[in-house]
């Protein structure tokens, strides 16, 4: 988190994945898909996602500072710790526990999970991290057994339940998914 002052007023700007929830990350990434006539407008929208500033406050920022703050959250900014599955296997939200089948070293998506995610990506043209979390983290029942519910409704409900967890928890899963999507994109590219 970075604290900045504009016109005598103090604001918080989220600068790491641990500060940003899944819902905020989705909103932030969706800005990159929009078309803008002016770059300033895009930076403005990005900063609105990750800070408590208003448009008027942003307009008073120096353009270089605006650009620097707006682009702090990206795949390139993921740290070494963001790549580790260790301590990102279980998560608790409002008293309910969710667990992934990661062994702490990696996560092997099943074919069913990959199909589910690719289906979702093909519709939205973006990785919806709330859906990703719902696929990866399954609810535990009273006996601490994993409930594998891949139904559309089940995934939708879990996505909403997990939307408030920090993006830092999901980071390694997103990077792992990225390996398969990138491989497929590379193999679909035309050869000379």
């Amino acid at each position, binding site marked *: 988190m970075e604290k900045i002052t504009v016109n005598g007023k103090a604001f918080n700007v989220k600068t790491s994945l641990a500060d940003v929830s899944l819902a905020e990350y989705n909103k932030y990434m969706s800005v990159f898909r929009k078309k803008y006539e002016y770059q300033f407008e895009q930076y403005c929208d990005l900063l609105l996602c990750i800070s408590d500033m208003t448009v008027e406050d942003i307009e008073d920022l120096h353009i270089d500072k605006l650009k620097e703050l707006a682009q702090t959250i990206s795949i390139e900014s993921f740290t070494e710790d963001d790549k580790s599955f260790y301590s990102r296997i279980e998560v608790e939200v409002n008293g309910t526990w969710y667990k992934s089948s990661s062994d702490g070293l990696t996560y*092997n*998506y*099943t*074919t*069913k*999970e*990959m*199909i589910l995610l*690719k*289906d979702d990506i*093909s519709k939205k043209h973006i990785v919806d991290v709330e859906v990703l979390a719902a696929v990866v983290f399954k609810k535990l029942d009273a006996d601490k057994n994993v409930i594998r519910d891949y139904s559309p409704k089940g995934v939708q409900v879990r996505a909403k339940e997990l939307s408030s967890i920090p993006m830092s928890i999901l980071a390694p899963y997103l990077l792992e998914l990225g390996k*398969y999507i990138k491989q497929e994109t590379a193999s679909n590219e035309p050869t000379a």
Partner: protein
Amino acid sequence: MNQQPKSWNDVSVAQYKEIYSIDRGDYNLMEKYQIQIFSILSDTEPEYFEDVSYPEFTKIQESFSFIQYKPTRPPSQKILTPAGELFLYDDFKKYTIGEWIDLEHFHKDSIEENLGIICTIFYRQLLPNPNPLLFTNKYEPYGDWIYLRESLFDSVPVGIVYGITTKFLEFRETLYADYSGLFDDVPEESDDDIDPNESIIEKAKRIQEEQKDKLSEKWGWDLLLYRLAKMENKSIQEVTGMPLIQALNMLSMKKEMKLPD
């Protein structure tokens, strides 16, 4: 997996027909389509492939890579079916025109869908030979058993029979090249051929010929059989038993010498 086919020799004709009945366009993702294909080929429930890890699935994809190519092995001379042995009859020049027309129809319609029927025409029983040292083997004549025998090929490996369709298509190309004058019946339309001074009677005759040519293209083999039957003074059914080359030679002669119908 219940089975792991390594090549087309491990896939039956029935499985081959089944995988080609699945339309890729019905699946938005390649993985969904592949799961259906792999399920048929390995006789394993689709859920098995959904539950494996994705890295494992990519290895399975590699193991089934042979299905990207058609079977290329030469056809077996002899195959074993539930009803006994059948032998390859691939001397196409000795086929009758009726057999040829049926083969044309089933190949044009869909080789994959009709593979079993096509095999019934190519693989026949041998007739008893009183003395193999004196007489060549004779194959049973063509009959109306093609639909009856189709299921005999369900369990035959597709890799050992598919090659006969390739051989047939190669022969077909040569045949049509040799008899191109007979099959290229429709002349190209050209205003240069029209005499600007042609009379009304000549114009009527020209239009009549053009209409006949269009009908020839429409009725194809039926028209050829009709002409053959008229020449031989036989029924259409009877002329279908005429040897293919003899029939084509008769028709070519009629056309070249402009003999009337």
